[in-house]
């Protein structure tokens, strides 16, 4: 087998050195009744070209080359090619967790840069080296707030990603954290009056998302005020990291739980992505996940180490801030490189383009339906309500190799025939125009627009 670097002669020599007659002797500790005397029932060994062919076939079966209007927590942005050039270097790809600092300075220094940039973007003072993703990061942030305040109640906005809320529910059940949901108003934002009623002196934190699941930017300052007045913390989840290029970060928040997938991490059917938690310095000891700190070596040279490890499972065990062991190091490095490539000015331009594309799409599609929550500022997503069922619209769009907006019925039945549409800098005008035409067809088949309907590629 080509991954195994031993010849039969090697094995023979090693067995002789050990004093065993065969390798089976080494498996003697396994009780005979359990030892497998047959092959595993899996397909035979495949050559590399066969493996590639198998996956190429799967790739083709997977809607390769479609234009997509999907967002909802996972965003298609352009990935600069140097990201893969750099992270594919064996020294990054195949390196271990940087517990041995002297031979992990590459990983440690890049995480330190990552932490720094996340702070700058989110307006917070410290950031960790990443969590699994935005959904678990939000759940962990809530638990962190519970530890810090010593309270148990959690108030969560219904405009937070439905799957994030589900995950929080799973985590919270066994931590004794009762969850109260607060609805959104006609403006698509958290209903402040309802929030006021829900927040009590038993509330550990309020969890919102901004831009929220509908793409609408929340009134973070007002929400923070309500939370803080009762001594609760404000946790802000950010699913579309690209928004931070043009939207003010939630500076009034106490903890930010971000999903950084937009920054150079491939969609890959939902994972691996890149969560991260950022907060104020005074809360750092209750923050879960790895942290890299700057220090000096015995000669006074600057270096970096994992620090405040006593928060973590390998030391604290059952009293740890979390059970988390791995972080998302390699994807965090992708994020790091992305943020470095775009930098101070590029991230702003990128966000502006997202705004422009979305604004155009909303204006075109809006003529064939109604855009909900139109009075509030939004980033790169909007909700379009149509007379026709969005599933039926999407079915027609698929014929044009377009994936339409996410139908919201299953998450928000009260919104009826609504769908969540996302545009990024990658979405072409042609795709938007075609989508508009296809939607129009459903309105009144005779009165569809005069422009020819094209099949579009991404």
């Amino acid at each position: 087998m080509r991954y195994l670097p031993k010849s039969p002669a090697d094995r023979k020599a090693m067995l002789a050195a050990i004093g065993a007659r065969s390798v089976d002797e080494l498996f003697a500790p396994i009780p005979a009744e359990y030892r497998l005397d047959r092959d595993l029932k899996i397909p035979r060994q495949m050559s590399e070209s066969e493996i590639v062919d198998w996956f190429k076939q799967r790739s083709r079966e997977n809607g390769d080359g479609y234009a997509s209007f999907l967002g909802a927590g996972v965003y298609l942005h352009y990935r600069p090619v140097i990201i893969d050039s750099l992270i594919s270097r064996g020294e990054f790809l195949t390196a271990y967790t940087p517990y041995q600092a002297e031979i992990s300075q590459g990983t440690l220094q890049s995480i330190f840069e990552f932490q720094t940039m996340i702070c700058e973007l989110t307006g917070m003072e410290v950031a960790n080296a990443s969590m699994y993703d935005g959904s678990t990061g939000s759940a962990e942030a809530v638990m962190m707030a519970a530890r810090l305040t010593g309270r148990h109640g959690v108030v969560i906005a219904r405009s937070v990603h439905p799957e994030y809320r589900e995950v929080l529910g799973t985590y919270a059940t066994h931590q004794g954290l009762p969850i109260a949901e607060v609805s959104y108003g006609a403006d698509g934002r958290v209903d402040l009056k309802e929030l006021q009623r829900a927040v009590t002196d038993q509330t550990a934190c309020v969890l919102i998302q901004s831009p929220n699941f509908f793409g609408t930017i929340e009134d973070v300052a007002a929400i923070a005020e309500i939370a803080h007045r009762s001594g609760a913390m404000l946790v802000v989840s950010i699913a579309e990291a690209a928004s931070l290029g043009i939207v003010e970060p939630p500076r009034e928040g106490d903890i930010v739980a971000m999903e950084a997938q937009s920054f150079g991490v491939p969609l890959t059917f939902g994972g691996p992505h890149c969560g991260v938690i950022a907060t104020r310095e005074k809360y750092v000891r209750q923050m879960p996940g790895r942290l890299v700190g700057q220090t000096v070596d015995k000669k006074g040279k600057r270096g970096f180490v994992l620090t405040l490890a006593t928060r973590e499972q390998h030391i604290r065990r059952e009293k740890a801030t979390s059970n988390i062991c791995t972080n998302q190091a390699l994807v965090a490095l992708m994020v790091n490189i992305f943020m470095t490539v775009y930098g101070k000015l590029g991230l702003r331009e990128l966000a502006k383009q997202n705004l422009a594309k979305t604004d155009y799409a909303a204006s075109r599609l809006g003529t064939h339906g109604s855009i909900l929550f139109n009075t509030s500022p939004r980033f790169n997503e909007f909700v379009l309500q149509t007379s026709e069922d969005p599933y039926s619209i999407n079915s027609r769009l698929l014929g044009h190799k377009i994936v339409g907006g996410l139908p919201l019925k299953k998450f928000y039945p009260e919104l009826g025939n609504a769908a969540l549409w996302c545009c990024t800098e990658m979405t072409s005008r042609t795709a938007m125009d075609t989508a508009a035409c296809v939607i129009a067809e459903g309105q009144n088949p005779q009165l569809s627009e005069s422009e020819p309907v094209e099949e579009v590629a991404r």
Partner: protein
Amino acid sequence: MAYPTDRKYTKEHEWVQVNGTIASIGITNYAQESLGDIVFVEVPKVGAELAAGKTFGTVESVKAVSDLYSPVSGTVTETNADLATSPEKVNKDPHGSWMVRVTVKNSGELDNLLSAADYEKFVSEEGGH
């Protein structure tokens, strides 16, 4: 080493020194040696109730966390502000670095604790581990 005789000790390596109605609590030299460089000490707020034999805080080194067990029951009246800024003082002068001060509820509890001589003996037996 010779442990100061002006106080009592626990098997979890805390010391308690009583002055009138107030007891000062800290950790012993053996404890700080075992822990290594101390980076953080967590103690309860003023007003908290401590129970003899129960944990009341933690002391952290780079690679380990240890629970602090209270030698006596009482209410916290003061915590040492130095702990937050200079935890290394606990390493340098463990017997001079008190962590919390509590009102003594039941002075009889002190009788259950070890004298300096008994503690020295205990530590020398446990030593080498």
